[in-house]
């Protein structure tokens, strides 16, 4: 499905060989970090993790279209690949999975990535509000050209009322929002066909007069191109766009999930299709854009990076307990100060 007017200008330019190689390197780095994080959990380095195995093309491709000088991204709990692509500090990002701080330790304003979000569909409306703020600022002459909000959610999250309210608000306000759905086939144990009536989240957009694209989310080039087109459309003041990237959650929902209870290995293999990373590798090879030496180099870089991140995570101590109290408000309250004092006395013994 494609109800978005064709792209022109910058958004229509093909990716250069260097960009294609960069995309591959990012995908390898993400794949390696992701599978490593599962190992970290098994080794007790982190208490839990939500892998994105199989969604590298969707995440790297969409994140690649973001202009971090002006756009803003609203992730869920599974967008590690987006964060990495945007250049977010990955120790600070991963710290949420170490149970250091809910939402992560990175600075969302600097990195242009909102804090990690555990409420399914929770941040979709934030994207609409943020985007409408860009419209207001542009109208007031404060910012130009306006930033675009990119919000992620899953096939499961699409069932939440907030998604409907967000689509309707965005369309009524013509807010520059790109709704990026990773339809990975599953919401924990519930498959898309028992979750998404009608079978497609993209099909919902027409009901709001919102253009939509349903794309092969495992083709990183297709994802970059679709996302760029959507950004161009929204940035030009034409309102929101919805992209449904069809992909597959190849791993468990999280490190505490056991997919064997609701799908067989055969089903998994049949439904998952070809591995997006391997697909891209074959394509780069066939097109003569990269060779085995490059792939080996990319993997080595990914490994080195993972080691650094792991070391950073292992070195991460718990946050001081005072932060519990200090970060609640901008202006603290006497009651909270009293509680902090009480805590210091009884728990810190100071």
């Amino acid at each position, binding site marked *: 499905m494609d109800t978005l007017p064709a792209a022109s200008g910058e958004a229509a330019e093909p990716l250069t060989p260097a960009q294609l190689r960069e995309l591959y390197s990012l995908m390898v780095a993400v794949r390696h970090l992701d599978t490593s994080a599962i190992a970290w959990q098994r080794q007790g380095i982190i208490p839990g993790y939500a892998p994105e195995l199989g969604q590298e093309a969707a995440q790297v491709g969409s994140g690649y279209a973001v202009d971090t000088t002006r756009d803003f991204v609203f992730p869920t709990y599974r967008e590690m690949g987006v964060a990495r692509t945007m250049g977010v500090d990955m120790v600070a990002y991963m710290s949420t999975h170490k149970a250091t701080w809910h939402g992560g330790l990175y600075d969302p304003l600097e990195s242009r990535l909102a804090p990690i979000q555990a409420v399914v569909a929770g941040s979709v*409306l*934030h994207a*609409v509000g943020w985007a409408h*703020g860009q419209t207001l600022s542009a109208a007031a002459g404060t910012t130009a050209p306006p930033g675009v909000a990119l919000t992620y959610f899953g096939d499961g999250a699409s069932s939440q009322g907030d998604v409907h309210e*967000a689509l309707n608000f965005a369309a009524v306000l013509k807010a520059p929002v790109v709704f990026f759905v990773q339809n990975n086939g599953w919401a924990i144990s519930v498959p898309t066909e028992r979750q998404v009536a009608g079978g497609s989240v993209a099909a919902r957009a027409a009901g709001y007069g919102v253009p939509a694209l349903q794309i092969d989310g495992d083709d990183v080039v297709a994802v970059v191109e679709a996302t760029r087109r959507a950004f161009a459309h929204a940035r030009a003041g034409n309102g929101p766009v919805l992209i449904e990237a069809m992909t597959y959650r190849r791993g468990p929902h999280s490190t505490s999930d056991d997919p064997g209870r609701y799908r067989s290995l055969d089903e998994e293999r049949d439904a998952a299709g070809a591995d997006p990373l391997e697909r891209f590798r074959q394509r780069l090879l066939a097109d003569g854009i990269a060779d085995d030496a490059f792939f080996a180099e990319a993997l080595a870089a990914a490994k080195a990076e993972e080691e650094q991140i792991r070391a950073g995570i292992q070195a991460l101590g718990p946050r001081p307990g005072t932060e519990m109290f200090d970060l609640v408000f901008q202006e603290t309250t006497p009651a909270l100060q009293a509680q902090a004092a009480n805590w210091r006395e009884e728990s810190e013994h100071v």
Partner: protein
Amino acid sequence: MSNSTLEGGAAASTSAATPASTTVMSMQQALNRALDEVLAENPRTLIFGEDCGRLGGVFRITDGLQAKHGAQRVFDTPLAESGILGMSVGLAMAGFHPIPEVQFDGFAYPAVNQIVCQMARMNYRSRGTMPMPITLRVPSFGGIRAPEHHGESLEALFAHVPGLKVVSPSNPHEAYHLLKYAATRPDPVIFMEPKSRYWQKDDVDLAHCDANDDGASPTGAKVQREGRHLTLVAWGAMVARCLQVAGLAAEDGIDIEVLDLRWLKPIDAEALAASVRKTRRAVVVHEAPLTSGLGAEVAQLITQSCFDTLKAPVERVTGFDVPYPSGDLEDEYIPNIDRILFGIQRVLEYKRG
């Protein structure tokens, strides 16, 4: 002359000679004026909600503001409260100061997820990098014979949520100053407007929020009437009723102090302690159901600080643990003068053992 005498006496702290900056207004007018000034003073403020724009809100609190400040800054949204609050969070992330309205107390429930999990927590989650200066206006409480869900008291719910501040004005003067103050804070404030008081007129001193207290911020509780025998603690529409009760009790020689709590989170524990240390008896009055209501918190705060001098356990005179009833029964539900007097009597007549 102001209306306040009808309600049993002017506020103790504003009963001095009327300053030149004083004018008579309804609470609706005071709130409207506060919003108008806030919009003029801070270009990042925005007002929106259902019917807030052209109509000026079903209670006319935003009357004329769209015409004056433009449809970009004062606008209608689609009919979805979660959407309104979620959008507020996003606007705050973009640096704005949203002043959304939910049309009635009962329609804040669909927005509870965004209020509790997002608005109240984003500053914390973002480690202080994304403050949430959101002033959520909620026409609140009962007393106007309205349809179902139009007479709810949500203060206990909101006050329990970490990351929220909660305030409720009791008269036009408080309404003006508390709203101006709340709408300039960097933290989320739930502003609960007692809708049964919207049309009551009274003195508003625009220049001074608290008498004899130039330039002070309207934080903490406020003694609206001084007394020696017992403290009535209330907020919102119940303050006027407590002042009436105090007037009646005075005829029987019972000298009652009326403490307007104003801030329901953070609660001014010091003011509670100071008043009850003096009076040694307290009754807390609210419209919300008894069980797990904010009256329990108030009572417990008083008991904690005044245990050794309290003459009787703190009484609670509140709504019952029943859904807010239809108009015909609302006078049975909301604490009325008789029930408050019975509560006072129980405290005054309490005997140990």
